[in-house]
C-alpha cells in the first residue's frame, strides 16, 4: 500500500520530527510509514489524513499495491 505522507509533508515544509510531534508518534514511525514498511492503525491513519485535510483513501492508496503485484 502506497501513501502520500512524504509528498504532503514536504509540500508543507515539515520535517519528520515536526510531523511526528504533531501526530503524537515517534520520528522512526513517520519514517517507517513514509517508506511503506509500516501500515498505521486505523485511528492513526485518520489522524494523519485529518492533519493534511485529506480523506484516508486519498492519503493511503491500496490500488497501487495491486497494480504493482
Amino acid at each position, binding site marked *: 500500500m502506497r501513501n502520500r505522507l512524504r509528498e504532503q509533508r514536504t509540500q508543507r515544509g515539515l520535517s519528520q520530527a515536526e510531523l511526528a510531534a504533531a501526530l*503524537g*508518534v*515517534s*520520528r*522512526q*514511525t513517520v519514517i*517507517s510509514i513514509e517508506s511503506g514498511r509500516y501500515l*498505521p492503525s486505523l485511528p*492513526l491513519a485518520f489522524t494523519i489524513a485529518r492533519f493534511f485535510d485529506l480523506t484516508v483513501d486519498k492519503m493511503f492508496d491500496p490500488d497501487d499495491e495491486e497494480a504493482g503485484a
Partner: protein
Amino acid sequence: MITFIPPRLRKPAGIALAGAVFAAAWLVRGGPLWWVSILAVIAAAARAVSWYRMGGEDTDEGALAASRADERQKLLSLRSRALACNLAAAAAFIGLTTAIAVKAGWWWPFLVILVVTGFGYLLGLSNYGIAEEGTPDDDADAGQPRRSPVQR
C-alpha cells in the same frame, strides 16, 4: 501505582526491584555465597542506570526503555515477546524430550515451562476476547425462520 512513577523511571525501577529481590534471595539462603547478593545489587544498579540512559535516546529501543513507545514500537515489542515465548516453549519441549530419552530426573522444569507458556496462550485468547464474535445474524434477519440457500 505505576502511574505515579515517571515513565522514564518505570523500567529502571522494575529492574532495580527485581535485582533487590534476587539479592534478598541470596541473603536469605545464607552460607558462604552470601556475597553474591552484593554482586546482584551492583549488576541490577548498573543495568537500571544503563536503561535510564537508553531512555534518553531518540531510537525505538530508547522509546521502549522510557515507556513512551507509540503503536509501531509497542507492536515491535509485542512481536519480540511472542518470539521469545515461542523460543522458550520450543527449547522447553526439546529439553523435556531429551530428559525423557536419557531417563534424567530434571524433566519437570521443562514441563513446567511448557505448561506455563501453553496456559498463558490460552489465558491470552480468553482475555482478549477470541470467543466474543457476537451473534452470526444481523438485525435484518432477526425473527425470520432459517432457510437453506438451496431451497426454493
